[in-house]
């Protein structure tokens, strides 16, 4: 769902012409750190985790954690510094979002028009399924309604075969059947004229 979600996020971002929702004002010196100050292996791990959620702005679809670009390394260092100071994940993501916009998040946050990005494809899938089910049910019902007429053309299994001069009720079909009989047998009634009663 992720690539589809991003394609749609792109369309929506262009459509709205502005960030979907204004990111909260969080950054150095603006809001106090909300988490615990990290260090050691936990700091390394969390730096990688958050780096994986951030898009490298100068790369093609790479996360900050995966990119070797200087910009990505600088951003990773910034993440590390903020984690060491005690900023939590959401504060750090919001900090980058403040300067780069929602674009910098690899997972569009579930808010505003982004609900459409996350659940739109599922909704479209369900709607498509419902349409297919409705069409199938309707055609089955119609087939049921027209069955007696078809019986007149195709021989029913539980009764005597229809007489050879039977034609469909539809006048156009009946005319077509007569034309075929004329071509095949040379007479339109299905039976030779003298045998017809």
């Amino acid at each position, binding site marked *: 769902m992720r690539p589809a979600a991003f394609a749609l996020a792109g*369309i929506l971002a*262009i*459509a709205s*012409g*502005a*960030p979907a929702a*204004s*990111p909260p004002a969080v*950054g150095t*010196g603006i809001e106090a750190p909300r988490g615990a100050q990290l260090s050691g292996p936990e700091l390394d791990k969390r730096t990688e985790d958050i780096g994986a959620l951030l898009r490298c*702005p*100068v790369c093609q679809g790479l996360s900050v954690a995966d990119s070797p670009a*200087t*910009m990505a390394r*600088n*951003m990773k*260092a*910034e993440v590390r510094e903020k984690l060491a100071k005690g900023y939590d994940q959401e504060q750090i993501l919001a900090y*980058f*979002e*403040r*300067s*780069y*916009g929602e*674009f910098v998040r690899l997972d569009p946050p579930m808010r505003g028009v982004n609900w459409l990005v996350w659940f739109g494809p599922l909704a479209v899938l369900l709607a498509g399924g419902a349409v297919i089910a409705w069409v199938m049910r309707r055609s089955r019902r119609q087939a049921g309604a*027209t069955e007696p*007429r078809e019986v007149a053309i195709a021989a029913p299994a539980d009764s005597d075969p229809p007489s050879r001069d039977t034609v469909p009720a*539809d006048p*156009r*079909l009946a005319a077509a059947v007569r034309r075929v009989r004329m071509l095949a047998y040379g007479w339109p009634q299905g039976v030779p004229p003298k045998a017809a009663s």
Partner: protein
Amino acid sequence: MATARPSRINGKVVIAGLAITLPLLGVLVANLGRDPHSVRSPLIGRPAPAFSLVPVGGGAPLSLENLRGKPVVINFWATWCVPCFEEHAALTAAARGLPDVQFLGIVYEDEEARTQDFLQQRPSPYPSLIDSEGKAAIAYGVFGVPETFFIDGNGRIVDKHVGPMTRSTIAALATKAKEGAR
């Protein structure tokens, strides 16, 4: 069996088709004049991120706070960037022609020695600051160079230009920054 008339338009199909195509058409029309490669900066209209950076060649750190009250043009550039090289002449000319606007360069992902050489060969009337850890570039949401921010006297970003500028573009956007504080 019902007789199908091929010329008849199915209203439901038309409505469904319009429901799908009209919103897409709306997106297309609404964005016809926009560059699909540019991501709109969320910083426009917001306070410019504060920084305190040392000028190329050393000296006391220069902070944006100290420039409050004067329109500021911040140009992110690098010596390895060919468009920046082309833009340099326009920027220096504009800075000389607009003494009431403070121009600043912020060096992006470059070595100080190379920057110093560059500026010795092509003197600039305004200072360029070294952003060695890229913090200012990140705070301003820089994607590449050259990128230029126009800040009004109240410290609010009024516009951002991506790519090299001509002298007339610089003058027009600097005027916008001057008017922004009024």
